[in-house]
């Protein structure tokens, strides 16, 4: 900006303020105290603002822009200084203060509105000159979120590009970058300023990405969590081809100076899979143009990290959480490192029932069967069947069913071969229904797939074991550290979910006590782990009975794994509902769920084999809550003892009407 104290125009202003002040002082007709004098000087200054505005209008016409700007700045400085002194020295009545404030704001407003309107009208007239650049600069300096003004600036700059020499353009854009930098210093979190910087950098005839990278360094050294700056850094890195390992070393440096830096850990999670991929990219049958597909996310399957690098990361994270066990950043990152890969996309089970003449298919993830190209071939003949989700509310579901045309497979003397094709994924599963058999299935079980264990190979169990040891050491030092407890639980599950069950439960109990705000989270997570353990036990025993009573279950999950279960016992838990996913239990014959808090039976819907339901001592209170049961054709025994609904008037006649097939009703 330079020094403007010798500006002749400034001299005029100072004189006028002084005159105004003297006038006011004379009007008092008495000697004044210092406080009063300062107050009068301020009044003089404020009263002069209108003159300034008038002058401003005149000056725009006269193109005395530089003078105007310096005058304005000098004026702002004086005002600020006086205001500071004023506030310290004088205590005024509120009404007087308010009135003064109001006047001041009114004038500020006029100034602002005048400048804005001039900008708008110039733009409307298609004027793209430097004066407009200066006006928008003034306004944006105080209000960088005024995005329309950034747009106007871009229009002006683009216009100048067409009428100026390249060197000139370079200079114009460089001064634009200086201006944006000033804006960012004042307001480092303005979307508009950062976007404009990216726009200018990309248009610069001779871009200087090294300078941009160092700007990011400086900005992040002031606030290492500024996500705008991190995002801009990623742009700069991409545009200038900074090597990934260089950026990884940058995060090493930041994490080294402060472990508690979530942004840096996050950045690592995006860099590591690029630098140390788990395996080479799988060849894609139809290569997509790179431009059209966005980069993969660190959540997806083929962007995990190779094992060697994982071990190094474990060490880094351990350094972090031993240094500061309460810093959540490192723990979040560690949980990601311990996480398993996504499941392979496959048909995990095909089930066919001769009696119901129905086929049920279970996928490794929720799908929309009608959208993914699902095809059923029976004895070499493609079938025209209608696939439906097990529940209308589940538009995407891991389990889909279809009914075969009547009498296709009903003759028990015939043998049939079924194949289900998942054409989108080029995968299929066969299933043979032998003569004399009423049902058949073909599947990969949860135990076969090691579904509930870590993806680390068995050879490396020793690594997880040593991680667990470290965490146990930390826990001895910090027995109530919730992050450490939760991590111990996760490691135990990766190592030996059944063997560590008792310790896991004890740790969950401690977690609920030390972090009571999140006790519902821990209950749900513990429920999930207990369900996983029960599935493993059931599969080792090779039975179709799933029994998990008295385990404080607060939620149900993995129900797709229970497709073949015929008997389920959920009694004495803390369940409030049987959700829509419950009807994935397509083979279920007996449901026991006594002594819970169930009030919602939405998932007991179209279960073709369900015969018995026991719901003693639950919270079913309305007749319509029982409505889903009417869709279960074989239901004959229902125990509702201890539910409020049984106390309703006309209950007996209502229920007989709703469920005429039930012959054994216990109330």
């Amino acid at each position: 900006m330079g020094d403007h104290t010798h500006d002749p125009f400034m001299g005029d202003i100072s004189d006028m303020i002084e005159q105004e002040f003297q006038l006011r002082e004379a009007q008092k007709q008495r000697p004044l105290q210092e406080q009063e004098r300062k107050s009068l000087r301020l009044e003089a200054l404020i009263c002069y603002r209108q003159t300034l505005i008038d002058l401003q209008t005149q000056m725009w016409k006269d193109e005395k822009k530089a003078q105007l700007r310096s005058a304005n700045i000098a004026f702002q400085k004086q005002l600020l200084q006086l205001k500071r002194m004023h506030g310290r020295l004088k205590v005024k009545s509120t009404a007087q203060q308010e009135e003064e404030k109001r006047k001041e704001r009114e004038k500020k407003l006029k100034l602002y509105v005048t400048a804005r309107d001039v900008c708008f009208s110039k733009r409307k007239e298609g004027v793209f000159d430097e004066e407009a650049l200066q006006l928008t600069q003034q306004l944006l300096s105080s209000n960088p979120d005024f995005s329309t003004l950034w747009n106007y600036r871009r229009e002006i700059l683009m216009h100048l590009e067409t009428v100026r020499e390249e060197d000139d353009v370079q200079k114009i854009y460089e001064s634009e970058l200086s201006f944006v930098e000033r804006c960012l210093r004042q307001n480092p979190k303005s979307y508009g300023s950062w976007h404009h910087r990216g726009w200018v950098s990309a248009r610069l005839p001779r871009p200087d990405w090294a300078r941009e990278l160092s700007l990011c360094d400086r900005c992040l050294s002031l606030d290492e969590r500024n996500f705008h700056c991190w995002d801009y850094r990623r742009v700069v890195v991409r545009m200038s081809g900074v090597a990934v390992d260089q950026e990884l070393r940058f995060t090493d440096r930041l994490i080294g100076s402060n472990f508690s830096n979530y942004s840096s850990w996050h950045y690592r999670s995006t860099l590591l899979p690029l630098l140390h991929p788990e395996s080479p990219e799988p060849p894609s049958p139809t290569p997509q143009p790179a431009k059209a597909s966005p980069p993969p996310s660190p959540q997806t399957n083929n962007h995990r990290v190779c094992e060697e690098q994982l071990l190094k990361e474990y060490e880094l994270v351990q350094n972090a959480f031993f240094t500061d066990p309460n810093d959540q950043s490192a723990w979040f990152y560690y949980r990601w490192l311990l996480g398993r890969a996504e499941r392979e996309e496959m048909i995990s089970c095909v089930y066919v029932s001769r009696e119901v003449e129905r086929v049920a298919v279970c996928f490794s993830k929720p799908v929309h069967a009608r959208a993914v190209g699902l095809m059923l071939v029976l004895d070499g003949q493609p079938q025209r069947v209608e696939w439906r989700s097990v529940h209308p509310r589940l538009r995407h579901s891991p389990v889909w069913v279809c009914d075969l045309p009547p009498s296709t497979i009903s003759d028990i003397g015939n043998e049939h071969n079924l194949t289900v094709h998942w054409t989108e994924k080029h995968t299929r599963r066969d299933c043979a229904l032998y003569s004399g058999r009423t049902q058949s299935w073909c599947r990969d079980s949860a135990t076969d797939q090691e579904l509930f264990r870590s993806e680390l190979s068995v050879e490396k169990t020793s690594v997880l074991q040593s991680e667990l040891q470290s965490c146990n050491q930390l826990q001895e030092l910090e027995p109530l550290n919730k992050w450490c407890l939760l991590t111990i639980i996760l490691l135990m599950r990766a190592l030996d979910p059944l063997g560590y069950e008792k310790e896991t439960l004890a740790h969950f109990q401690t977690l609920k006590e030390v972090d009571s705000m999140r006790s519902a989270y821990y209950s749900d997570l513990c429920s999930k782990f207990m369900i996983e353990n029960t599935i493993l036990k059931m599969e080792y025993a090779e039975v179709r009975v799933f029994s998990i009573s008295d385990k404080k279950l607060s939620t149900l999950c993995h129900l797709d794994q229970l497709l073949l279960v015929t008997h389920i016992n959920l009694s004495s838990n803390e369940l409030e509902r049987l959700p829509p996913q419950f009807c994935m239990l397509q083979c279920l014959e007996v449901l026991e769920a006594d002594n819970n808090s169930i009030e919602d039976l939405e998932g007991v819907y179209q279960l073709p084999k369900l015969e018995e339901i026991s719901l003693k001592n639950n919270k079913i209170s309305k007749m319509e809550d029982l409505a889903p049961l009417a869709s279960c054709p074989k239901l004959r025994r229902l125990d509702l003892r201890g539910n409020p609904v049984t106390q309703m008037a006309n209950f007996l006649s209502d229920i007989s009407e709703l469920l005429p097939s039930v012959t054994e009703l216990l109330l």
Partner: protein
Amino acid sequence: MGTQMKDVVIKPDAPNALILDKHADYIAAYGSKRDDYEYTLSEYLRMSGIYWGLTVMDLMSQLPRMNCEEITEFIKSCQHECGGISASIGHDPHLLYTLSAVQILTLYDNVQAVDVDKVVEYIKALQQEDGSFAGDKWGEIDTRFSFCAVATLALLGKLDAIDVNKAIEFVLSCMNFDGGFGCRPGSESHAGQIYCCTGFLSLTGQLHRVNADLLGWWLCERQLPSGGLNGRPEKLPDVCYSWWVLASLKIIGRIHWIDKAKLRAFILACQDEETGGFADRPGDMVDPFHTLFGVAGLSLLGEEQVKPVNPVLCMPEDVLRRIGLEPDLLN
């Protein structure tokens, strides 16, 4: 180097009861301060400001106190030739304000006041080859704009106007190691962005692709000992995150993972008993933005004095029922 927990302390004399009358008066009076300097400075987001004010008034059943005709005329005059709608007269159109305008007109059951076909064309033209959306013709890309695009189209019943599959793939490419979402691929997770992305996936029927247990854990860890929620790890609590974090948790079916009573106490403590309105933190200055998100947060927490709010669109449920829009929620 030890981490110091960033949080606030709620004073014992902080407000602990909901003072709806004062909030309604505060919002009703806000629009009359048009000659105010601060009010003029916020002109660049006026349309969103009106949406915040009207929505909170509707949640408090006070919408008739606002000037429907004047607002409708204002919105009409903010629609541009390209179909987009700007924050105010003289400003440029943008997806942010196009959504706000359509939300306001939906509250008033009067979307036909603007040229709906042109709005749809405007949005459609902003979709990029990778499925993302630019906020306006100047090309800023952000998952917020993906949300604005599908939310506006869903309110207009025109979701099929864009390439929904590509839009979905882009949003999913912004998913992070913690299960959250950022502005663009590679950007750090942020509760506001997570709200936009889970809302987007709800409107496009793709919530099953969220890692709900992982994301839910990150979200419930936003609750601080004061009961308030922050938007990222190691940040201060703020009433607006009562909305963004809580709505995201509601969308992914895990709202019970936070301590509702403590959050309620924090939100109530952010009221200004003298002026009405809510501030970001107890004792700070109030504004309409935090007033809406304070009241909407209380609604999600089950407050019966206000209407139930929809977690995806931040509008009263009865309004969405009227137009037959029921965004998915995980259960």
